C-alpha cells in the first residue's frame, strides 16, 4: 500500500518544484584509509523538456552522480545532500520505494549497450519485464507496448525483431533497444550515461537525433552524461562541468561554450577539434 502511494504522490508535483533538483550532493565510499569522496557538493536542476549535460573526464564523478539519483550506488556507497523529483526527496528512501521510481519515473540508458543487455534473454523479455513490473497486465499487452517502443526508436520489423537476442543486433541498434526500454514507460526523466561513447561517429549522430526527437515528442527531461563536449553542444540546454568530484562550472550551453569562466572548461574547449585550426586537434587536456 505505502509503496504504491509513495509512487503515486511522487507523480503529483509539488507546486512550483522543478522536475529534478539536486542540492549539495556528495557521494563517498569507504576505503581502508577512510572514506573517499567521489562527488563533492554537486548541485543542479533539470526542468521538464530540457536537457542537462554533465561533462567530465572518467573519474570526475559524473556517473556516480547519476547512480546516486537512481539510488543504485555500488555496494558501500553513501550519498548525502538532497535529490528531489518534483519536490519529493529521494535520498533516504528505502529500496522498495525507489524501485517504484526506477524505470517508471526515471529511466537510464547506459554506455555499453551489449554488456548492459542480458545475453540470455530476448530483447522482448527485457523490455516487457520493465513494463510489467510497473504496470502489470498481460504479457500480450506488454508485448504490444514493447513493439511500439521499438517502432519509435526506428527498429525495422519490430514484430519479428522483438524475439531476437542482443547479440543479433548491431551496436547502434542495441542502443536503440536500450532507449526503447527506457521510453516504454514514458518516464519523466531519462538519464543517459555516455550513451554514444561506444558507437561509431555516424551512429552516434543518429542516436543523438533520435533522443532529441523523442524529447520533443514527450517533453521528457534528460540528463546527458558525457566526456565529449561536442556531443553536449548538440543536445544540452544547460551544462555542468565536473572534475575530480567537484563542480567546476555550471551554466547554459551557450554561456559555457562562448564565455567559459573556469580555466579547466577553457582547456576542454581548446581540446575540441576545429575545422579552422587543424594543428590544434591533438592537443590534450593538461589538467
Amino acid at each position, binding site marked *: 500500500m505505502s509503496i504504491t502511494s509513495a509512487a503515486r504522490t511522487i507523480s503529483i508535483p509539488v507546486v512550483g518544484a522543478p522536475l529534478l533538483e539536486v542540492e549539495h550532493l556528495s557521494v563517498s565510499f569507504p576505503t581502508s584509509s577512510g572514506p573517499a569522496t567521489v562527488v563533492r557538493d554537486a548541485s543542479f536542476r533539470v526542468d521538464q523538456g530540457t536537457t542537462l549535460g554533465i561533462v567530465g573526464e572518467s573519474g570526475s564523478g559524473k556517473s556516480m552522480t547519476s547512480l546516486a539519483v537512481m539510488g543504485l550506488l555500488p555496494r558501500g556507497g553513501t550519498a548525502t545532500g538532497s535529490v528531489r523529483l518534483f519536490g519529493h526527496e529521494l535520498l533516504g528512501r528505502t529500496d522498495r520505494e525507489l524501485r517504484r521510481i526506477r*524505470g517508471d519515473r526515471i529511466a537510464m540508458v547506459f554506455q555499453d549497450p551489449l554488456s548492459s543487455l542480458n545475453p540470455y534473454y530476448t530483447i522482448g523479455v527485457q523490455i516487457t519485464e520493465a513494463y510489467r513490473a510497473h504496470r502489470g497486465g498481460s504479457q500480450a499487452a506488454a508485448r504490444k507496448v514493447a513493439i511500439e517502443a521499438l517502432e519509435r526508436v526506428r527498429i525495422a520489423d519490430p514484430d519479428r525483431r522483438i524475439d531476437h537476442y542482443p547479440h543479433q543486433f548491431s551496436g547502434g541498434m542495441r542502443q536503440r533497444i536500450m532507449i526503447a526500454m527506457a521510453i516504454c514507460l514514458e518516464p519523466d526523466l531519462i538519464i543517459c550515461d555516455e550513451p554514444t561513447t561506444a558507437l561509431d561517429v555516424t551512429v552516434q549522430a543518429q542516436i543523438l537525433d533520435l533522443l532529441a526527437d523523442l524529447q520533443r515528442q514527450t517533453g521528457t527531461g534528460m540528463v546527458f552524461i558525457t566526456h565529449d563536449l561536442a556531443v553536449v553542444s548538440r543536445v544540452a540546454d544547460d551544462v555542468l562541468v565536473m572534475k575530480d568530484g567537484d563542480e567546476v562550472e555550471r551554466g547554459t550551453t551557450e554561456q559555457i561554450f562562448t564565455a567559459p569562466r573556469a580555466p579547466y572548461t577553457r582547456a576542454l574547449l581548446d581540446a575540441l577539434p576545429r575545422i579552422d585550426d587543424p594543428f590544434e586537434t591533438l592537443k590534450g587536456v593538461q589538467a
Partner: protein
Amino acid sequence: MLFYLLRRVLAGILVLFLISLFTFAIFFWLSPDPAVQICGKTCTPERIDQIRSQLGLDLPFLQQYWQFVSGIFVGRTYGEGAGAITCAAPCLGFSFQTNQSVTDMIADRMPVSVTVAVGAAVLWLLAGVGGGLLSAVKQGTGWDRTVMFGALAGISLPNYFVALLLQYVLVVQLQWLPFPHAASFTEDPVAWFQAYLMPWLVLAFGYAAMYSRIVRTNVIDTLGQNFMRTARAKGLDQSLVMRRHALRPSLTPVVTLFGMDFAGLLGGALITETVFGLNGVGKLAADSITKNDQPVIMGVTLLAGLLVVIGNMVVDVAYTGLDPRVRVRSA
C-alpha cells in the same frame, strides 16, 4: 545444426578411435605376454603357441587391432573348427581370469555404477549449487567463510581418505551404519540405501566442494555485470533480478562441467567403489588392473572413453540451447 551435429559425432569417433588405438598399442608393446599368463604354471611351449594362435596373438599389430575393432561391431570367432568360440557383437573379448565375456561383465556391473553416479550427482548438485549461491549472496559473511572453508577442505581431501574417515566414524565408532555390504533395492531397500549412502556422500562431498567454488565465482562475476545494473535500473524487485538475471548466466557454465563429470562417473567410480566394495564398473577396472586382465582393462577404458565422448557431445548440444550466443545460426 545437422552439419554441426555431424561434425561433433565425427570428432567423437576420432577420439574413440585414438583412445582404442593407444590403449591397444600400450598392451601390445609394453605388457607381458598374456598367453603365458593364461597358460598358468603347468605350461608347455606348445600350449602357449596354441593359445596365441587361438586368440590371434601371433598376428601383427594392425591385424590384431583390426580383429579387436571388428569384434566390437560384428562380433568375432576365436579358434577354428569344433573348439571355436564365438563372441557376439559388441565383442570385447574374454577375461583372461574368468573366461567370461567382457561385454557381459561390464553390463552386469553397470547398474551399480549408475546408481552410485545418479545418487551422488543429485547430492552434489544440491549442495554445490546451493552452497555456492549462499556463499555468493552472503559474500564476506560468516556463511560465506564457512561454506568456502568447507569447500576448500573438500577439494583437498582425497576421497579414499574421506571414505575411510566416514566409515570409521559412522560404522566403527557410532555404529549408525552396518559394515558395507551389497543389497538389492527390491528385497531390502533399507540395506540398499545403507550400502549406497556412504559412497554417495563421499563422492558428492568432493564434487560439491568444487562446484560451490565455481558457482560462487560465477555468481559474483554475474552480479558485477552491467546488465544487472540495467535490471535494477528498470525497477525490478530484487528477487526477480536474482532469479532471472543472475541465476541463468551463473549456472549455464556449470552444465558443461556437470555433463563431463557425470559421464566420467558413469564409467565407474574406481576408488569409491573399491573402498566400499561395491561391484560396479569402477571396481571391475581396479580388480582387472591388479590382475593385469588386459581385455577387461581395455573394455573398461573404452567404455569410459565412450561415455566421456557422449557426455561431451550432449553438453555441446545442450549448450546451444542454453546459451543463445552459441546457437548455431540457421537463418
